[in-house]
């Protein structure tokens, strides 16, 4: 702060960005104008400032003109600030003596038809940036150590893959799952397209691996309660929900020799309470003490305390293992990790909101996930597809694609849910394979067979005899007597209306972000897109990262994806999350608050403003002054915006710097 001030010497560099900028803005005029600004010693322009020769211009100019600050007028600091900071540093200046004027993303691109207005705006933007650059100071990033551990939230196939990759890279990994078992949506599927692998067969080995990997600490039936800290040093509090049943490890820790749940199931056999099993969408029963399916990891029963009547029969059945504790309560545990991967997956859109297709009104209208369970050998019917109304085998089945997807009516979802085309093709295949003579009809808008070997799979199903009808289904109505369904649509290829009577209708419902994901997302400071999917740092260049340093995304929580894409992104996220951990330290941008002690009255009002408890009052020379714990300060400046005495110095966003920008715009223009 108190460094020796020399007269600022600023260099301004205007980028053409090909024609992105130069096609709208008069770069020559802007450059000439920049050269006339106060403190500006040199102004130059170049085709692509981010290129090697462009950066060389900055490096050379710093040396040739003894510059104290750099302004690059180009794209956005959110894209190229790091690039130009590096060039500034290579020129021998402190990298924080760089300021960017955004004349592309927020100027030439949005004022394409107003070159005069855009040029005037570019001149102002450079004037504003040069004013700030004149006041910039040397700053030094704070280097912090990174905890040699990571957390993965959500244990579907994406979370499982990410956790295994991290763990195999030698990193201690906490895998947190809100359900009693790992596996996620993939464990509800029967077969997977286009290879027709059995879903559980390829998933179960991975589920088992995470259950016994020495570097993975598995926390099922657990939710994230609180997040504190920053990259390298997240303190995450977990709520371990009361399961009512102890694992063998937990029992051993309590000194119950040979105790804990071994998955024998005697308790469930004794339990008198019967409830629908949500894993089977209510099509199969479960007891109040339950496991979802035989392959659960960990193999520990769970009590549904909302259903449990606490009769104690399970405790009796468990006997000497003493695994069951009906008085168990939620417990909390705080762990420290360096990086986090969110992999929270998806839910099905409530397709009953689309009244026209009759879901929950007519027995024989089901969703695709219900179809998966009905056709699955380990499902409620042992793999025999039946009509819910009468248990008969359906011989004509209609699949309704884009059920709630690509829907701009305001009721459904505007986006493509991406994997419904492919699983519906798979369903058609399964029908024809399992039920000889069964005829599938696929009502589609487009078939999007986007992946490797997917188009070939599409042709295969066509050749097998599935009938394709192009047109969105308008209405599904039931024949009250036979419970058959009439599907009304327009065949847009033949240009005529369709009234097709079928035994069963399967709705390929849209998908949406997992229920109640917002609190989790917000705890980690991750934004969402308008559709509620978590927002990546950059859609193309940083698809696994988020705007919170150290927090990464994997799988459908970022947007609809099939299994291969989910697994690929999980591997990417694991790689990204392991880099800071293996590097061992990260640099934090030095946007810390500082106290100007001579101005501080010690009122302490700033303390309540700080969201991170980074401020406190300390005694200095016999009076109270504010003190900043830099490791906690994240540089938002909320204290600085509030301090009534102007005693807070917000590095890189100081009051004089911001006021200089305001003045430069409003007082410094051409008159």
């Amino acid at each position, binding site marked *: 702060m108190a460094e020796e001030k020399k007269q600022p010497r600023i260099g301004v560099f205007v980028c053409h960005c090909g024609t992105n900028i130069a096609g709208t803005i008069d770069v020559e005029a802007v450059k000439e104008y920049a050269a006339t600004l106060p403190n500006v010693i040199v102004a130059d322009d170049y085709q692509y400032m981010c290129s090697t020769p462009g950066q060389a211009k900055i490096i050379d100019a710093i040396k040739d003109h003894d510059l104290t600050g750099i302004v690059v007028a180009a794209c956005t600091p959110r894209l190229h600030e790091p690039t130009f900071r590096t060039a500034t540093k290579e020129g021998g200046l402190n990298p924080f003596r760089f300021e960017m004027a955004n004349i592309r993303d927020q100027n030439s691109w949005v004022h394409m038809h107003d070159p005069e207005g855009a040029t005037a*705006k570019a001149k102002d933007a450079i004037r504003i940036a040069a004013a700030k650059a004149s006041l910039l100071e040397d700053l030094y990033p704070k280097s912090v150590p990174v905890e040699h551990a990571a957390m993965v939230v959500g244990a579907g196939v994406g979370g499982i893959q990410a956790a295994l990759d991290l763990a195999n890279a030698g990193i201690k990994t906490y895998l947190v799952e809100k359900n009693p078992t790992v596996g996620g949506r993939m464990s509800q599927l029967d077969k997977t397209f286009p290879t027709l692998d059995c879903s559980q067969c390829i998933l179960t080995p991975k589920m088992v691996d995470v259950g016994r990997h020495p570097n993975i600490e598995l926390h099922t039936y657990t939710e994230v309660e609180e997040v504190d800290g920053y990259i390298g040093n997240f303190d995450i509090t977990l709520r371990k929900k009361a399961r009512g049943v102890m694992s063998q490890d937990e029992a051993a820790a309590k000194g119950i020799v040979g105790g804990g749940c071994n998955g024998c199931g005697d308790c469930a056999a004794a339990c008198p309470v019967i409830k629908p099993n949500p894993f089977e969408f209510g099509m199969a029963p479960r007891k109040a003490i339950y496991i979802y399916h035989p392959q659960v990891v960990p193999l520990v029963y769970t009590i549904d305390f909302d259903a449990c009547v606490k009769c104690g029969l399970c405790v009796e059945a468990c006997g000497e293992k003493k695994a069951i504790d009906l008085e168990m309560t939620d417990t909390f545990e705080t762990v420290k990790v360096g990086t986090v991967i969110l992999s929270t997956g998806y839910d099905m859109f409530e397709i009953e909101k689309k009244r026209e297709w009759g879901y929950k009104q007519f027995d024989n209208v089901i969703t695709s996930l219900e179809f998966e369970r009905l056709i699955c050998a380990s499902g409620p019917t042992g793999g025999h597809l039946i009509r819910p109304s009468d248990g008969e085998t359906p011989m004509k089945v209609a699949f309704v694609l884009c059920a709630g997807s690509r829907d701009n009516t305001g009721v459904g979802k505007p986006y493509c849910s991406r994997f419904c085309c492919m699983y519906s093709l798979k369903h058609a295949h399964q029908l024809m394979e399992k039920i000889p003579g069964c005829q599938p009809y696929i009502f589609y808008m487009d078939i999007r067979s986007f992946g490797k070997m997917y188009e070939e799979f599409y042709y295969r199903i066509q050749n097998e005899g599935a009938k394709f009808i192009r047109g969105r289904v308008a209405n599904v109505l039931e024949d009250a007597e036979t419970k058959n369904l009439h599907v009304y649509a327009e065949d847009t290829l033949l240009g005529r209306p369709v009234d097709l009577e079928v035994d069963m209708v399967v709705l390929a419902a849209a998908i949406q972000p997992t229920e109640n994901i917002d609190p989790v997302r917000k705890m980690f400071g991750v934004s969402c897109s308008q559709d509620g999917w978590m927002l990546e740092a950059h859609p193309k260049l940083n698809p696994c990262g988020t705007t919170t340093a150290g927090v990464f995304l994997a799988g459908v929580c970022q947007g609809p994806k099939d299994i291969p894409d989910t697994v690929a992104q999980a591997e990417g996220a694991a790689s990204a999350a392991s880099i800071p951990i293996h590097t061992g330290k990260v640099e934090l941008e030095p946007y810390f608050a500082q106290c100007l002690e001579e101005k501080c009255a010690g009122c302490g009002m700033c303390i309540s403003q700080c969201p991170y408890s980074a401020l406190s009052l300390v005694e200095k020379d016999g009076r109270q002054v504010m003190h900043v714990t830099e490791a906690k300060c994240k540089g938002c400046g909320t204290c600085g915006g509030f301090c009534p005495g102007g005693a807070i110095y917000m590095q890189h966003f100081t009051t004089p710097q911001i006021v200089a920008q305001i003045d430069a715009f409003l007082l410094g223009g051409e008159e």
Partner: protein
Amino acid sequence: MAEGEWQPKIIAIICNWCSYAGADLAGSARTQYPPDIRAIRVMCTGRVDPLFIMKAFADGADGVLVSGCHFGDCHYIAGNFKCAKRMFLLKSVLKDLGIDDKRLRMTFVSASEGAKWAMVMEDVVKTVKELGPSPINQLKQ
């Protein structure tokens, strides 16, 4: 712009994580809006000292926009909420000073709302143009 037409001076102070990113998104999508607003980037709207806005009006700004994240989405937990409270209070002060409080606007535009950013730009420019030059500028003449 038409010759001799009055051009308002409007300044926007916007947060790095939501509104600035939203404004960039409007750019990538080439969503067009009027070029009358100049932006200053801060990390969080919580940084916005009401005095910055008073200073802008004293300097002759015809309008000031402060734009941050939606409530609950702040990168710094609640900086936007604290800013909104300050702006609410500041509006009543402005009124007492004879500055129409419509000249100060706070909006919430997320990183995924490029189109909304363009709408905000249109609307702020329209509002300020309807109000005409700031009374402070009239005093100066």
